[in-house]
């Protein structure tokens, strides 16, 4: 299984995603420079966290113009699994691969902490190995993770079961105190209508080894490996 980790000049979790795929999961992984125009035969694409092009304008706003994004669009349109983590999620929103936008966290502060998220749907390549309703303890680290979309879009996301992760307390309850950034409908992660493109604000790659305090993020990477191996939920393998 080959992971492509897209490297924008301001990506800063690219090494972490690569490490999780290669060293922790033992899969093949390759960095793909944002100016490249070829995904090097990857089976799965990760858009990592960071500040893609400095993000002085708006998080992820410039990244959609990077040459590699045309390939990522094509790969996604063909049903290939794409995971956007944190800034990668923001890039997916800006690129129109996922609906909605990110606002500043409601307290206007950057938040780095472990949070709990509940797996809402398991029929995506990145949640296949999760139990429905499973609560994962995974870190967040962002200043603009306050997900926003108008009520009609939220209703459509609900109806299509596109909300994949929600912020909850440790017991899996959606309560305001467990929402770290003010996201609408406590949304921590989404998928597209075809369900092969998933974006989430928390960092599963930071929760893959016990020495780091949590291994709850591994299941997200293991899901896609399993999904590709079995040919489930992915149109192309």
């Amino acid at each position, binding site marked *: 299984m080959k992971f492509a980790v897209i490297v924008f000049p301001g990506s800063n979790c690219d090494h972490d995603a690569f490490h999780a795929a290669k060293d922790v999961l033992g899969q093949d992984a390759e960095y793909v420079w944002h100016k490249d125009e070829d995904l090097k035969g990857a089976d799965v694409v990760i858009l990592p966290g960071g500040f893609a092009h400095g993000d002085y304008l708006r998080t992820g706003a410039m990244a959609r113009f990077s040459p590699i994004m045309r390939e990522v669009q094509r790969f996604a349109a063909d049903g290939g699994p794409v995971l956007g983590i944190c800034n990668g999620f923001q890039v997916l929103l800006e690129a129109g691969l996922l609906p909605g936008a990110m606002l500043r966290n409601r307290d206007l502060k950057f*938040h780095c902490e472990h949070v709990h998220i509940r797996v809402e749907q398991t029929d995506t390549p990145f949640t296949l190995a999760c139990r429905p309703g499973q609560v994962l303890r995974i870190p967040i680290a962002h200043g603009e993770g306050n997900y926003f979309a108008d009520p009609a879009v939220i209703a459509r996301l609900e109806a299509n079961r596109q909300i994949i992760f929600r912020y909850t307390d440790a017991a899996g309850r959606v309560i305001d105190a467990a929402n770290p950034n003010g996201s609408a409908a406590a949304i921590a992660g989404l998928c597209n209508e075809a369900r092969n493109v998933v974006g989430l604000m928390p960092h599963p790659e930071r929760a893959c080894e016990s020495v780091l305090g949590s291994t709850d993020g591994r299941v997200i990477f293991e899901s896609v490996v399993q999904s590709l191996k079995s040919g489930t939920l992915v149109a192309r393998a």
Partner: protein
Amino acid sequence: MIAQSVLERHGLKPDEYERIVTLLGREPNLTELGMFSVMWSEHCSYKSSRVHLKTLPTEGPQVLQGPGENAGAIDIGDGLAAVFKIESHNHPSFIEPYQGAATGVGGIIRDIFTMGARPIALMNSLRFGDLDAPGTPRLLEGVVSGIAGYGNSIGIPTIAGEIAFESAYAGNPLVNVFCLGIAKASDIIKGVASGVGNAVYYVGAKTGRDGIHGATMASAEFDDKSAEKRPAVQVGDPFMEKLLLEACLEVMQTDALIGIQDMGAAGLTCSTSEMGSRGGAGVEVDVALVPQRETGMTPYEIMLSESQERMLLVAKRGREAEVERAFEKWDLHAVRIGEVTSDGLLRVKANGTVVAEIPNRALTDEAPVYRRPTAPPEYLADVQRLDLDADAGRRPGPTANGALLALLGSPTIASKRWVYQQYDHMVRTNTVVLPGLGAGVVRIKGTDRALAMAVDGNGRYCYLDPYRGAMLAVAEAARNVACAGARPLAATNCLNFGNPERPAIMWQFAKAVEGIGAACRALAVPITGGNVSLYNETDGRAIYPTPVIGIVGLLEHADRVVTRLFQRAGDVIVLLGEGRGELGGSEYLKVAHGLVRGVPPALDLEAEHALQMLVLDLAEARLIRSANDCSDGGLAAALAECCFDTRGIGAEASIDGVEVARDPALNLAAALFGESASRVIVSVTTDVLTDVLARAAKSGVPARVIGQTGGNMLHIAAGGRTAIDIAVDDAERIWGSAMTRYFRKQAA
């Protein structure tokens, strides 16, 4: 002849001007005068501190690079080096907190990757006025978001730090930033220019008029006009620095460089003259070739600009194309602005015409060195006198419970979660110990090892006794590293003091450096570099003398790391070391009685070393489940901290009484809150207790069982009397919300 007023504006004294004329053999022109003024400023030349710094221990088998380079480096095994340094950005942070702090982070990161190391961890040490004083919240918020804004963007985790609040810092906050990177020991690269004809390249952000005379500003006191100095504070661009970092690390892998240095204080003047001086070479540059952000800049402005995110490098002849290509990949343009020469001169041209010509050594090694007069401060004899009964016993203090809660809720001791939650402390997936649990610990990927690091300083102690206070700072930083289970290897220091031209300040400085030297020798942690920040005064009022020490240590096995957290109920609590009820300079006296008096706790360096080695041995043998050193707030606060963040594991403890006053309430306070040094609270399982006590006895460290973990109360008896009896939850709420509550109050 240059007018007296021009000299004053440049911060140069008449005798310094004469020295310039002697070194040049002629009068300098204005550009040259500007270059001398920044290079001979206190900030760049260390002219007042140098004679003292020379006495510090800097050598050891582990030291790969001592002071004098962009950063120090030590051997951490597996062919790897840890490259680290601490630096201050106090003055800019007072004038413009966000950008001042942000560019402080940017500067120290550049110092680390300039050495060929990938930065993997940041820490900071901050000092502010009292949190409830007007202006402090604004400064704190600005500084914290500046550190966060820069460090988070560039993707280097801020894993640990310390903050203290004292009115002495009200007009002059301290922002000290530490960075550590990892390099292959064989790949460390230095800031040298050599090889006649080799190309000198400029790369990074364009040069603007920002920060001109920043170094001179950092070498003067503040007054009510300081806000007008805002243009001298630079603006940071973490994205540009990220590009520079990645591009420089790629270029360094090609072996095409002779040397590289960042342009920090004194900008192009400093990088050219220092690189030339270190390499025994001359450097010739043409300022017309320097990329400029503004039009009409004079050679003077270009040579003195402190625009951020710029690097100077010297390429090997014939390898220029490789260097240029590596930068192009990152959309950076390395511009050839000159070359290395043989004459030892820094020759500055503007469109081919020479506009300045100064021997490199005149700007660097031959800068003036002062052995300034010292005299003990007049306040000292008075403040060192402490008669507990007379000074603290006049009116009844709080109950022991009340005092503990007041201490836990004091901003200096309270949880700093509000702060570190704003820092990305997990990026790069190496952070083994999260902030707030002890020393910062990062694992080293590809090895079993981890690095532990801590920064510590206690300005109040140093105000009362700079020699002892400085020793205590070294001891505490090293002890914190040892409490994580790491062997302290080396140190870096950031020396924050007032105006060195005042003998009392210079005395504080000299004594503090002596103390650091003594402690570093005894604890085998040589100083590998650091920074001096003087003139920390506003309207003639100096800060507390504040040496801040950063210590780096090595864990052989990352998974044997220890934190302050009790792990489960039913473990035995052992106190290593002995309390003597020392209340001088304590947080208790300040919080409960409003007193800053007495002498700081005594420190027996041999006992301290034995204690640290014992804790290390116990951690390596996996005999302890937690370790927490006793510092601010004494044993009682330290025990409370062991219970916090454990989901409510309480403790039942009984400690010795002491007799230091007639008033029994003060004796109780001394036993609970006295800050005697060289003490660590560990928790152990019952089956290894005998082994732990035997190992302590063998290393000559006093050890006694003081209680056990469990329940949901913190109960402490002192001298047989119940003193503390509070629910852990209640105490934790006060400790955990002290800062948040404060900012909420501000917002309301």
